[in-house]
């Protein structure tokens, strides 16, 4: 393994605010998107000759379409509250990874082309021409933002860097400067139906394998249905759940919960993805197209309920945007929220006593819970604000005997990003990912030292992929990472009490 290549931050259990190290991360860049994906998505394959005019025109369009962008360009007072909040600043020490400095990359161009002071006074009013160098800076630093919204939480005006990053990426895409990982993913989701580009039969065969596997382990014929018309529940889950580790363990968990509840359910081969990278790159139409496949699946399979698997940004799109993008959900049973998170569903069953859970099955674990950023700061579960923190923790407490929370400044709405969301789960920027995860690793190290934590539970496909990848660099086992429904899967007693 080539692990020695990277400078891995030292684990102390404390998150120190570093001094500035200019350009520390300036060389870290995502790969450019291949021509095929750019073309498929309606973008030019390389920087167009009149890119500057096109970029400014796109910027103008976005300023008219998004109040968030317009207001956020104007009202920052540079108070500095966000400067020590970004995991990428804390990890890389690069001052341009301070949210206000990242936004300034776009703001200085905004001032130049869209404000009187900037047009007249130029540099004196901190306005700058859009040049190739500026665009390169955008490409570097707007692909060093995971759109986790941690900065937005602490901003006195609620300025959300995610909105700014999305706009900058959309402008760059439009003139032919796209990043490979997010755009390839979007293209696969639009054309094939999932981020991994798996065709229906491939998914079916992994589901068959899982049916056998669960049968072998438990002796119970738990089904993993796909494309079943008239099933009660349509489950939309990240495609990583079909084959990645530890994601599949959670899929087994969902299936066992449905089995035990006696509720018929199905996956869709056409809408085989919860994730929606359209959001990450700020393209409304891509986001709508990806979500549109789910609308088609609803119309075809005619389920009564829509349930959503463990995925962070996907849950944001589902919870906050689906109703706008593909709603209203008139054909679904109005008794249930649409969509409903699998954690809400399981939690409800636990509360009603419909599941028998054997906590001792997880006695090897001291569990802690990582709140995923988009779940924590951009969505909700349950009926009251903050349910997204309580419900997964309640499930964990119902499935294991030993649970410990990490430092209060690193959980719930203050949670630290995994360092790979927002379309940054790309191999070429592994160095950035290792540094970006540093604050989270410090918090985990602290509960390891104090409580012997050894199971890192979470509900996000990207987080799972990122943590299993970076844990070894920090000297931890990737097996420590797992889904909340992985714990459910281990603890659930099958067969004992069929139905509700």
């Amino acid at each position: 393994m080539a692990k020695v290549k990277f400078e891995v931050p030292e684990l102390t259990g404390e998150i120190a605010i570093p001094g500035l190290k200019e350009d520390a991360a300036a060389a870290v860049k995502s790969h450019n998107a291949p021509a095929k994906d750019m073309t498929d998505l309606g973008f030019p394959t390389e920087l167009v000759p009149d890119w500057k005019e096109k970029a400014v025109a796109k910027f103008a369009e976005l300023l008219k379409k998004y109040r968030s962008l317009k207001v956020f360009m104007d009202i920052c007072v540079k108070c500095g509250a966000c400067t020590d909040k970004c995991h990428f600043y804390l990890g890389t020490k690069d001052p341009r990874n301070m949210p206000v400095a990242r936004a300034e990359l776009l703001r200085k161009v905004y001032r130049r082309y869209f404000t009187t002071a900037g047009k007249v006074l130029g540099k004196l009013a901190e306005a700058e021409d859009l040049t190739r160098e500026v665009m390169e800076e955008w490409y570097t630093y707007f692909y060093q933002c995971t759109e986790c919204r941690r900065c937005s939480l602490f901003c006195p005006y609620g300025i959300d860097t995610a909105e700014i990053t999305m706009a900058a990426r959309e402008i760059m895409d439009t003139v032919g400067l796209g990043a490979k990982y997010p755009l390839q993913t979007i293209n696969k989701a639009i054309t094939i139906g999932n981020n991994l580009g798996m065709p229906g039969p491939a998914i079916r065969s992994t589901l068959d394998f899982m049916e056998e596997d669960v049968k072998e382990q438990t002796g119970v014929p738990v089904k993993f249905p796909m494309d079943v018309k008239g099933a009660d529940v349509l489950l939309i889950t990240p495609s990583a759940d079909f084959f990645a580790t530890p994601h599949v363990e959670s899929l087994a968990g969902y299936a066992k919960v449905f089995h035990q509840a006696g509720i018929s359910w199905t996956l869709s081969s056409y809408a085989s993805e919860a994730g929606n990278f359209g959001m990450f790159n700020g393209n409304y139409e891509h986001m709508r197209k990806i979500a549109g496949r789910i609308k088609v699946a609803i119309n075809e399979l005619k389920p009564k309920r829509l349930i959503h698997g463990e995925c962070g940004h996907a849950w944001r799109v589902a919870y906050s945007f689906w109703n706008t993008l593909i709603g209203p959900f008139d054909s679904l049973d109005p008794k249930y929220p649409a969509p409903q998170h699998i954690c809400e569903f399981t939690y409800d069953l636990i509360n009603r006593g419909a599941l028998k859970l054997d906590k001792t099955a997880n006695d090897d674990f001291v569990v802690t819970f990582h709140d995923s950023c988009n779940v924590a700061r951009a969505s909700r579960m349950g009926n009251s604000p903050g349910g997204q923190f309580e419900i997964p923790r309640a499930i964990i407490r119902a499935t294991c005997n030993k649970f410990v929370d990490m430092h209060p400044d690193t959980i719930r709405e203050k949670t630290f990003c995994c360092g790979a969301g927002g379309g940054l789960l790309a191999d070429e920027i592994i160095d950035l990912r290792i540094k970006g995860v540093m604050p989270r690793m410090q918090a985990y190290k602290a509960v390891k030292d104090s409580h012997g934590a050894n199971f890192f539970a979470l509900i996000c496909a990207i987080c799972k992929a990122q943590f299993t990848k970076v844990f070894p660099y920090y000297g931890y086992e990737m097996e420590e990472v797992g889904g909340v429904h992985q714990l459910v899967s281990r603890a659930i007693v099958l067969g004992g009490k069929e139905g509700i």
Partner: protein
Amino acid sequence: MEFSLLTIIFSLMAYGAAVVFVFGVLCRIMVYAKTPSPLKIPTTPAPTTTFGAMIRVLSEVLLFRSLYKGNKWTWLGGVVFHWAFLLVVLRHLRYFLYPLPAWDMSLQGIGIIAGIILPIAVLYLLMRRTTVDRTVFISSLADYFALTLIFFIAGTGLMMKFYERPFMVDIKGFVYGLATFNFSAVPTDPVFLVHFTLVMILLAYFPYSKLVHAPGIFFSPTRNQADNPRESRHVTPWSPNLT
């Protein structure tokens, strides 16, 4: 009645600044109000009702709730500065109102205390800006300009209160005259003229600078939106409905 050139210049400057301020701020507000919010993006956990979201915005405007979470020292400086500024402005209403209402009369004493605190708060904010490496990196001319301008406005104001003491009746006559279009001569006290000029500069600068954060905060979607996408379908005005 004949007016001196000085009076004419200062009167025109006052109206000019007032027009720029009112027109500029109204324009900003109209642009913000007109620009759609296509998606539900409140920073959660967020209130689930519109009323709750209003309370959230007010808690930001009056108490700087998010900043309190972000940085206690900046919060302290910011809150003291803004409240002192507000009290000083309210105290100055006595130049515009006749007879002076009782509530404003009762604010005169605390207004003076606020006037003394104001430049101290400005110095504190300047000091913070220039001593933390991160804020040094992000600060620019505009950030120092706004603080310095307000510092000198407060300074000249305090000079008139505690040192120069120009004839207040003249000042009230001039300002009240401007407000009621019943003109009178501008006082010739140089400290007053500097104070007055700086305030006019601040007014004209306001709508075209970061100072628009004052009206802008009311339009911040992450703070003013209710978290109710399940209960009420939010529609994107510029995107057609999917069937």
